[in-house]
């Protein structure tokens, strides 16, 4: 049929589902039989980006592994809101040990599966930015260096939300947290050089590294489904807004994440064996300011008066990302 090759505009190329597509090629999230790995009844805040990102990622991993999945979880919001005794929201084999050891526990699970000859079982480890970029970095690096057969997924909401929004290694410049209050001459977080776990992961030359966002479901699922079958250490860093910690509207969670991507502040790319191989080109570029304005954690950049210097400095970070990863030219992945 001639129209099969045509893109679908009414159903939108970017919507979750697409009634005109063969169900087999639709997103996992559009499937009425998706695993709902993280089920109803969890105690995450309204509009929680992490809860959304976790279900996106683990459902995709479940489909890619045909249900042969074990998940290891670091301490943090995700663990606390999903498994308060006597209820668990997880529908997959799941273990929580400590804050800083998810990567190592996962390595242990892998070793045990290998020893038992259960090579079909795929292992993921997941944690927040604190458990990944800060306290868990040692174990993570060890897992990478040994090239253990683990897919580590970091849900980055850019602060220690579980303990009440304290600064983490991935908290962006100028952001207000409980430990970087908006007071004094330079309110909010310092303008440090930042800490990019994806780049740290790439420095280990592991088979696969990717960044993803809850605003780009197709892209996210593509990356998880691509990562699952790869043998060896893999890392996916997912940007997940936190309405509570960021001071954004619960219904704006995806919008905020989208602006992070479209401003260039959160670049989407893939890397294999240490080299960037793919990037997701920005469709409609937006100024960083639009992203900042939706979040109370940046309110002090605009009130009482605009902090032109620091707004420009943040825009410069976005510009650098776009230039560095070539986010505006080149072919977007179909």
């Amino acid at each position, binding site marked *: 049929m001639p129209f099969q090759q045509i893109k679908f505009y009414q159903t939108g190329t970017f919507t979750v589902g697409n009634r005109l597509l063969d169900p087999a090629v639709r997103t996992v999230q559009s499937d009425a039989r998706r695993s709902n790995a993280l089920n109803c009844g969890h105690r995450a805040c309204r509009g929680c980006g992490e809860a959304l990102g976790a279900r996106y990622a683990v459902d995709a991993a479940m489909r890619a592994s045909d*249900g*042969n*999945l*074990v998940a*290891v*979880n670091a301490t943090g919001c995700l*663990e*606390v809101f*999903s*498994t*308060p*005794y*006597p209820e*668990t929201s*997880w*529908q*997959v*084999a*799941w*273990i*929580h*040990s*400590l804050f*800083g*050891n998810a990567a*190592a*526990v*996962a*390595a*242990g*699970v*892998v*070793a*045990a*599966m*290998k*020893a*038992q000859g259960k090579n079909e*079982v795929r292992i993921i480890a997941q944690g927040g930015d604190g458990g990944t970029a800060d306290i868990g970095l*040692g*174990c993570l*690096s*060890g897992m990478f*260096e*040994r090239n253990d057969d683990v897919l580590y997924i970091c849900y980055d909401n850019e602060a220690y939300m579980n303990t009440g929004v304290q600064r983490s290694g991935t908290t962006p410049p100028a952001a207000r947290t409980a430990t970087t209050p908006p007071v004094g001459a330079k309110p909010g977080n310092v303008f440090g050089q930042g800490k990019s776990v994806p780049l740290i992961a790439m420095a280990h030359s592991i088979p696969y590294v990717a960044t993803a966002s809850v605003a780009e479901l197709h892209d996210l699922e593509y990356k998880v489904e691509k990562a699952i079958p790869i043998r060896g250490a893999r890392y996916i860093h997912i940007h997940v807004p936190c309405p509570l910690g960021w001071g954004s509207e619960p219904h704006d969670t995806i919008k905020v994440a989208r602006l992070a991507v479209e401003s260039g502040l959160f670049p989407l790319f893939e890397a294999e064996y240490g080299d960037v191989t793919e990037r997701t080109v920005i469709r409609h570029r937006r100024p960083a300011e639009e992203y900042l304005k939706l979040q109370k954690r940046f309110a002090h950049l605009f009130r009482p008066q605009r902090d032109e210097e620091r707004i420009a400095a943040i825009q410069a970070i976005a510009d650098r990302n776009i230039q560095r990863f070539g986010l505006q030219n080149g072919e977007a992945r179909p």
Partner: protein
Amino acid sequence: MWKQIEGSRAIAETVAMCRPQVICAYPITPQTHIVEGLGELVKSGELAGCEFLNVESEFGALSVAIGASATGVRTYTATASQGLLFMAEAVYNAAGLGLPIVMTIGNRAIGAPINIWNDHSDSMSMRDSGWIQLFAETNQEATDLHIQAFRLAEELSCPVMVCVDGFILTHAYDRIDLPLQHQVDAWLPRFEPRQVLDPAEPVSIGAMVGPDAFTEVRYLAHNKQLQALERIPEISGEFYEMFGRESGGLLRPYRLDGAEIVVVALGSVNGTIQEAIDELRDQGVLIGSISICSYRPFPLEAVCRALMNAKRVVVVEKSLSVGLGGMLATDVQMALAGRRQKVFTVIAGLGGRPITKASLLKLFRQAKADALESVTFLDLNWNVINRQLARENATRRSGPAAESILKDLATLPTKMV
């Protein structure tokens, strides 16, 4: 099979006979030879079907072990001293999750000042973590205890530490009767996990438990150790039936017949203590000793029974609860709660200081003469102490104690060993 062999090597070969499926290693003296040996056995293929991971830290080592054990395989690791402290968080976690991991501790002091030599401060620091702690008196027992440890751990779904005196046992070449593989296979059942990470039967392990159930969880952990009190002697008995050797058990009495003075100690020092006891017995002194193998769970009843007729109890321990005195002594006192016997604490062998028969004889004679203080520091160099204290009294800024003491030691005549 008899061998003249280093303790660490004997332990490595025996652990291998228990067919663990995951072993993780991180180097720290004096435990290192054990995992080196196991690494070699895995790489050479002698220990088949086992994954050996070189991890990035002790914290990582036990974390890997937690993951592996939760996946339902027999898991082993070893550490010592600072290493045990660095994995402390995971130590409590493994016990809390009820994972039957077996871990060897090559007992060593804890800094600062950094010290690589033997005492019990490291495992003592984890005595309340929920792990079972078994102390080996000899390298033969160290070897045998590992086989028993796996059985005990897996029966109760509770992790076990086998505490082996660093250097004194780990590095000593001894005459050891190594078990045979077929014996171990016959005696040690397959590991049947109580919980396992299995996509076919998914569960969530490691939930957050609030005030409504936390006490119950903790009580159940305590109850597990009470069950261990029953099983440890039984397992020791069953071990005897297969291997024809007495190893393990709750405690081992020595010449208690009519003993008025009873010495209590953990680990390898019991050998030297027994030498001293023999000599004193020859001189007609009514003295005996008990070597405690199971420190956690602590066998209150058995200890109480063993000390029933003693007039004085001398607890020789290689650790110090700073500001209190002895930890073992405190437990012994609890065992003797309500009885009138005197319990003396002797802090000895800290940071590798040799516990000599001579010093022990002197000590026990004092005990006989009822001339012991409630807390005694064996072979304490009072010259050094007095000078430092004097300095500190003279000026508040007296500099780091350790350095000044080393200066003193250099100027004072001291016995070189």
